[in-house]
């Protein structure tokens, strides 16, 4: 297929062949350069500029993909052990690449400011961030199953490297992550080899032929291996324990990057393998006997549970970063649910939720890092009343939590609305109810987050806090701004997700700048947000015109049942914020999965001790004879052919 376009576009003379190569080359040079440059403070700014450049290259690639090009091939391809490895960037990969480089851009911008100067080894963190971006680009542009697996491993290990930067507890959390990631990777490796066993090849097309050629049992094994392998990285329900501590212990800027994008690599791989290659009909046809469920609905229920349970665990957290990372796991459930519904609305909703999540989660993490930078702790019981001292950080966190909770003015609402609508039209009421329960849980826990940090009584030692420096506030505000703009005009984000949706296949979603117009109920955010802002303006008018001028009092001029309030009494209500709810759902937190994980650990220890004891006994010749006798019996009975 000739890659030169019939119509004349300005990028026509840039040979499309080299766009992906430029991207990968620049990422590799940046990673190696930063390792060499190391400590230099300009390393951060250099990285930020380079990420900006990569964003531009991706934009051009996006324009090309938008105008009908199927994928952007790369010159880089190897022929090893009779298998050829190729790299090419299609719409789906491009979409996730855009998010990756965008998140890296903001993280490195944030890291090269004053926050970076106070870190121990900021140069190394910049370098590892660049390494992560390179690994993710390799994964996203993989052309066949083997390069997919190689990219997958590189991403896992790059994430492991960046997680260990936090020191002490971070290393323990990273170690736990590594075991999960390794188990997941081995599952994927086994699945790939299974495909190769059936079709003899490792290309994406071979997977499709393998699915049709395999027996249902083999297809089930393949489905479980792929779902489990990629599910580990996405922190689907049974494998989710590692993500919260690992992502919250990582130092600020890189944890914003990890939270925004790194967990989504699992979603990319799941979409690529299960949705694009195997196809949802094939998954749907994999019926579980004796139940009305199929593989697809089983995965949807896993996604639904992953949506609800982590959100209510987040509700009970007392550390701001842990709360946000637990929400990260919950939001992953939304995206997978949206994509698995199968209708164009659902897929568009799921993909847009990936985009939205990246914007507001990164903004939230950068805001919490700014609070840590100034107040020294992220423990919700030690903070309070910072709104007067850090107003811009408050604004970012407010826009972020409105996005995370999915309320109208922000973009989070649009994608959640599309997911709900697709669930409703797709005839899945129970999943819709679970989705909504998760949203309610999110609203409760995000309010606890913003209340305990910014509202309420300002503590004595936070009196003289200053606002976070500009180099930290600016990226946060821009991210929050992106969230608001795509919320006000969701059409912008939907154009981007169109490219990814076209790559996945299936019908496209007709949408306009304001949102979606369907027969069974439409959403036009231009009107919704416009009227909301107009109405708030009306509220402002009522507030300022009617009634006397407002007189601002300080925080101790407060009603406390006739008690005289002063700074040495801590009356800020923040510890155990929802006591009533805790009494009802408290007993439900039995931590059964945590105990299961410890069980496996103990099992391995006992087995290890057993094997060592076997060897420590003195009579090894006895074993030799024993085996000889057993062997004779084994061979004597003609040795059943295994």
């Amino acid at each position, binding site marked *: 297929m000739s890659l030169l376009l019939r119509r004349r576009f300005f990028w026509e003379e840039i040979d499309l062949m080299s766009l992906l190569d430029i991207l990968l080359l620049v990422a590799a040079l940046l990673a190696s350069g930063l390792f060499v440059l190391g400590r230099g403070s300009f390393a951060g700014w250099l990285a930020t500029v380079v990420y900006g450049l990569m964003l531009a290259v991706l934009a051009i690639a996006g324009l090309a993909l938008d105008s009908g090009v199927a994928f952007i091939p790369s010159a880089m391809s190897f022929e090893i*052990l009779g298998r050829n490895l190729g790299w090419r960037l299609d719409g789906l990969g491009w979409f996730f690449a855009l998010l990756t480089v965008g998140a890296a851009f903001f993280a490195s911008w944030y890291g090269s400011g004053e926050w970076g100067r106070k870190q121990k080894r900021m140069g190394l963190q910049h370098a590892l961030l660049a390494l992560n971006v390179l690994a993710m680009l390799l994964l996203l542009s993989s052309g066949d199953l083997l390069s997919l697996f190689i990219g997958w491993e590189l991403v896992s*290990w790059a994430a492991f490297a960046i997680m260990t930067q936090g020191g002490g507890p971070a290393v323990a959390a990273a170690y736990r992550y590594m075991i999960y990631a390794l188990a997941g990777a081995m599952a994927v490796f086994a699945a790939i*080899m299974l495909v190769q066993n059936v079709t003899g090849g490792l290309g994406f097309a071979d997977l499709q032929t393998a699915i049709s050629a395999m027996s249902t049992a083999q297809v089930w094994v393949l489905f479980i291996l792929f779902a489990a392998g990629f599910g580990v990285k996405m922190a689907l329900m049974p494998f989710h324990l590692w993500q919260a501590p690992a992502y919250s212990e990582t130092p600020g800027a890189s944890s914003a990057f990890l939270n925004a994008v790194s967990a989504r690599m699992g979603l990319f791989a799941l979409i690529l393998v299960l949705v694009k290659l195997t196809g949802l009909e094939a998954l749907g046809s994999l019926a579980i006997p004796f139940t009305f469920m199929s593989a697809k609905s089983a995965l949807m229920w896993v996604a639904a549970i992953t949506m609800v349970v982590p959100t209510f665990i987040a509700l009970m957290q007392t550390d701001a970063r842990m709360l946000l990372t637990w929400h990260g796991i919950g939001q992953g459930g939304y995206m997978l649910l949206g994509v698995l519904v199968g209708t164009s609305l659902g897929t568009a909703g799921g993909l847009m939720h990936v985009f939205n999540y990246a914007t507001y989660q990164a903004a939230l993490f950068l805001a919490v890092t700014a609070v840590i930078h100034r107040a020294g702790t992220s423990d919700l019981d030690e903070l309070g009343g910072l709104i007067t001292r850090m107003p811009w950080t408050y604004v970012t966190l407010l826009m972020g939590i409105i996005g995370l909770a999915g309320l109208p003015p922000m973009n989070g609402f649009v994608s959640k609305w599309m997911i709900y609508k697709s669930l409703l039209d797709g005839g899945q009421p129970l999943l819709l109810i679970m989705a909504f329960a998760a949203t309610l849980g999110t609203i409760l826990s995000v309010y606890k987050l913003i209340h305990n940090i910014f509202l309420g009584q300002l503590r004595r030692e936070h009196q003289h806090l200053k606002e976070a420096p500009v180099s930290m506030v600016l990226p946060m505000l821009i991210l929050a701004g992106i969230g608001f703009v795509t919320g006000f005009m969701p059409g912008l984000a939907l154009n981007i997700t169109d490219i990814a949706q076209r790559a996945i296949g299936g019908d496209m979603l007709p949408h306009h700048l304001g949102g979606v117009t369907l027969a069974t109920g439409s959403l036009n955010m231009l009107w919704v947000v416009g009227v909301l802002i107009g109405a708030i303006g009306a509220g402002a008018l009522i507030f300022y015109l009617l009634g006397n001028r407002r007189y601002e009092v300080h925080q101790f001029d407060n009603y406390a049942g006739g008690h005289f309030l002063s700074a040495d009494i801590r009356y800020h209500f923040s510890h155990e914020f929802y006591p009533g709810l805790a009494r009802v759902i408290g007993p439900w937190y039995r931590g059964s999965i945590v105990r299961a994980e410890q069980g496996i650990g103990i099992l*391995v220890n006992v087995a290890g001790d057993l094997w060592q004891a076997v060897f420590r006994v003195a009579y090894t010749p006895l074993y*030799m004879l024993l085996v000889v006798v057993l*062997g*004779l019996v*084994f*061979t004597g009975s003609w040795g059943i052919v*295994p």
Partner: protein
Amino acid sequence: MNTVPQIIFPVAIPLIAAFLLPIAGRCHAGFGRIFGRAAVLVTFLASALLAWQVAGAGPASSAMGGFKAPLGIVFYADNLAMAFVLLLNIGVWLFWPSGDEDRSGPYTLLLTLLGGGAGLVLSGDLFNIFVFYEIVAVASYGLAASGGSAAGFGASLRYLLLSALGSSLALMGIALVYAAAGTLNLADLALLAPDVLRGPPGAAAFLLLLIGFGVKAELFPVNSWVPEIYASAPVRVTSLLAGIVSKLALIVILRFLVLVFPMPSAYGLLLTLGILGVLAGELAAYRARDLNSTFAWSSIAQLGVIAIAFSIPGPAGIAAGIALALHHAVVKPAFFFIADKWRGDVKLLSGGARTSPLVAALFVLLSLSIIGIPPLPGFWAKYLLLDAAFSSSPAYWLAAAVVLAGAVVEGAYLFRAAGFFYGGPQKGRGAALFMPGELVPAFVLGAVLLVAMFAIAPLGAYITSMAVQAADVPAIAAQILLGGN
């Protein structure tokens, strides 16, 4: 094809040198060491020449003294054999004791080990293999005891008893084979085996041979000597034994399997022992507390993986086995050198990365490769294994699953140790600051690993051609019976 007289040089030169060394050593103290190194160098050159010839003109063989099968002793050299002879030569050169070794003991033992090992791989006659195996065994008992510590003597004595019993069993196996087939020449047996060694006697003979040679190949039930010997023997001997000599024994078992006992029950037996070996090795290594015993158990596991690879019938299995063996031969000695420097409980080594970052980085590189992380050669070896395992019967799928699970457990304990190096606070003595000079072999092997990373494609092609050559039995038989004059 041609019969090459030089085929016996890799065996003859070291043995003669081993004989002359004590004499040379007695007349001049330092001369012993130089003479030894020179002998190894000459052997290496001879082997390289032979290997180049074999690679060029195909497998060579020669019957000793002109006696034809079934009586004569035959030597047979193909690419597989020559590869491992070269590996042995390089290994001995690299792990030649450097210190001011005045006693000539270890040098002679090393040379006998070199000669015996080469003979083991080259000879085409069953009893001849047994004799060379005994030479290698005796040399390894001596080397294991050369550490001079009480534990060394105790361990090598227990090892001797175990191995001697194993050899007797092997001899009994050979007697059974001779009783059934009337000949001991491998090629002859290859032609007679299908009808003669089909039934239970054949299986029993293979079992006895497998257990006999399994002692050195660290197969499951008979590898209890591994932790004791590797803990007490000097590090260069440990690397030699773990890295190279155990592979030679496995190659011999492969020869039996391919030529003499191509029966499903034989493959099944080796597979079972392989799986048990992997399980035992990985789980025991998870519980080991100091680095040295961790790597001892992990070498049991890795050899279990190679045994699984060889138990897959057909050239694919052999190629995977060879790749894994070569990779393990490069990685394991380096690990042992690091373990030798960082003795004692892993917890006491916390903060090691700060005192010696280079060694810690090497440790992480080796761990990544042995787990099988893509760009490194370890991944491609494991890929070959899984490729072969998944394309054969479902029992091998279970084996592949065990290997993968083993890799996870391996990752767990290796990175637990890495966690101590990097994460732990600088408490206690931590890792002693030492010049990397003492770890030259380890860094050399690390460099070899990195270089191999870029040369995967040619290496892969070479290994697969070697496997194909080793697998087609009729060509070997024809070469040995007709070609040898």
